[in-house]
């Protein structure tokens, strides 16, 4: 009896193993195709880096790799341009903006998901409807407004359009809705204030949502171009994308410098991506597929 059941189990394991092993040829083909595709994806980054380590003459030569790897282009870009200043501007704007996005989107998301008050549905639909309005439609009035109130060339001017994105409100509302009602009732009975319910009970439980939203807000800000291009008119208020665009535009055919500048803009983002890779991709899935 025992021997038979063991034989049966071994037979079952065998068939599971062959089932798993079956798509062997296909798997190899999949690896080959995926690797070729991955090389194509990486190639522009690699070519940018290689070009950025060549000198002015060699960058225009047919050589693939630099005969002498040089950091001189990076030094030149960092000293000749206001890159450190652009970097600081981008950092200030992105940090403040992300902080605002996290706090306000969570707060509004919480209120819309968990509190009862007249007009809730109207407010939710109104906020949702702002998602349909493209930024292009808003930049002209924002510019008129900024000129009127003296916000041109200020950090506030760079910041104000993105303080509370409707998308973030929608995302956080989804997260708060999944929390059990009893938690908040228990908190109320224990005499926790309304703000305390949000801050001390709700907020700690929506960590993954906050992580995804925070990373997207930061990267979105870091990469933003259209509005910063309009509102940052003096050289000292430029962000990284605006700075590198205008510098590269003036650099003519100094491709070794342009590639070094591009690398300085791209590498920090890639480093952040490598560190937070899992959270970022899960965030896309979370907001993309379920949102």
């Amino acid at each position: 009896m025992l021997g038979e059941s063991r034989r049966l189990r071994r037979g079952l394991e065998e068939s599971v193993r062959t089932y798993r092993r079956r798509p062997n040829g296909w798997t190899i083909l999949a690896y080959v195709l995926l690797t070729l595709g991955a090389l194509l994806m990486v190639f522009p980054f690699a070519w940018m880096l290689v070009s950025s380590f060549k000198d002015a003459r060699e960058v225009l030569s047919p050589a693939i790799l630099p005969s002498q790897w040089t950091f001189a282009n990076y030094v030149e870009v960092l000293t000749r341009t206001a890159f450190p200043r652009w970097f600081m501007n981008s950092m200030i704007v992105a940090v403040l903006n992300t902080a605002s996005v996290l706090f306000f989107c969570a707060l509004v998301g919480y209120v819309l998901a968990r509190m009862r008050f007249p007009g809730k549905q109207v407010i939710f639909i109104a906020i949702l409807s702002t998602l349909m309005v493209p930024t292009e439609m808003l930049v002209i009035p924002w510019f008129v407004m900024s000129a009127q109130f003296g916000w041109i060339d200020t950090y506030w001017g760079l910041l104000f359009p993105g303080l509370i994105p409707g998308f973030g409100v929608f995302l956080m509302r989804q997260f708060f809705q999944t929390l059990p009602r009893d938690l908040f009732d228990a908190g109320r009975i224990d005499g926790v204030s309304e703000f305390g319910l949000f801050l001390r009970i709700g907020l700690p439980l929506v960590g993954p949502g906050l992580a995804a939203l925070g990373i997207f807000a930061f990267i979105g800000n870091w990469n933003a171009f259209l509005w910063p291009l309009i509102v940052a008119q003096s050289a000292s208020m430029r962000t990284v994308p605006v700075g590198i665009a205008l510098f590269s535009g003036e650099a003519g055919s100094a491709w070794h410098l342009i590639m070094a500048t591009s690398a300085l803009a791209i590498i920090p983002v890639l480093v952040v991506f490598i560190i937070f890779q899992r959270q970022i991709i899960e965030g896309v899935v979370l907001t993309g597929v379920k949102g």
Partner: protein
Amino acid sequence: MIREPRAKRSSRLSLTQREAIYAYVFLLVPLVFFATIRFYPALQSFRLSLFTWHVDPARRTFVGAQYYQDLLSNPVFHQALTNTLLYAAITVPVSIALGLGIAILLQAVTVGRGWYRAIYFAPYITPAVAIAWVWGWMYNVNFGIFNRIIIEWWDFVEGIGLPWLAIDPQRFLRDPEVALPAVAVVIIWQQLGFQVVIFLAGLQGIPRVFYEAARIDGANPWQLFRHVTIPLLNPVLVFAVVITTINALQLFDQIVNINFTDQGGPLGRTLSIALYMYQEAFSRARLGYAAAVTVVLFLIILVITLVQLRLTQRRVEY
């Protein structure tokens, strides 16, 4: 004695009222934000599009639908609109087909799936401005890597006696016929990872049972794909189509930077609606006319969003 129950009732009422008051206190700043930074500017764009532009609001004159009529008869606007639709027509199907293909391949592999996914996704989050400069360099006519490869290839096929396999060097961004597809390649390269990630998640959400059942019924791989994968992936597909289309309609960063000295060129062949709006508003100071351009863009996006809502509400049931 009579007052007591009434007092009780009013205190219960005030509990609900209390919650409502707190809700509105919390919403105060956000509501002011949405009203002044989102709603008012959207309406303001409509209004600006009906007036000639002047810094002093008192000196703007009402022109009615004049700018909209100008738009309809303006060849440059037509070109920007055509180009923008072409960007969508190229990037949407290609990036979705490639994204779905790669996601299916990724499902077949187990070792290194996360790394492949990360590599395909990386371009999606890197700044489009820098990406555009990198591709502009690769497309460079005299010194770009693509033409170098083409020339190397030429030498190679001539060396082995098959000269008919040679390709001519291209002018890429300088060639009016090739420039737009060349830019579309950059856009596909950059957003492919987004499609891969959401399709992979969608594929993993399809229960294996459906495949097993279909296989037992004798379905071949193509039938599995056509009758199991596609219908069950429908919501993700619609979402991907809409997001990619809206992105294509709003193209700006790449177009400005990839051909910086001749933005939208050659001969306006890469000009997008967003860039056209920017040039009209901020280079030519025709803010009223530019506002009309953005209203048209808004209407196009609105229609697409409504179609999406209609399509996603029709769920596939099994």
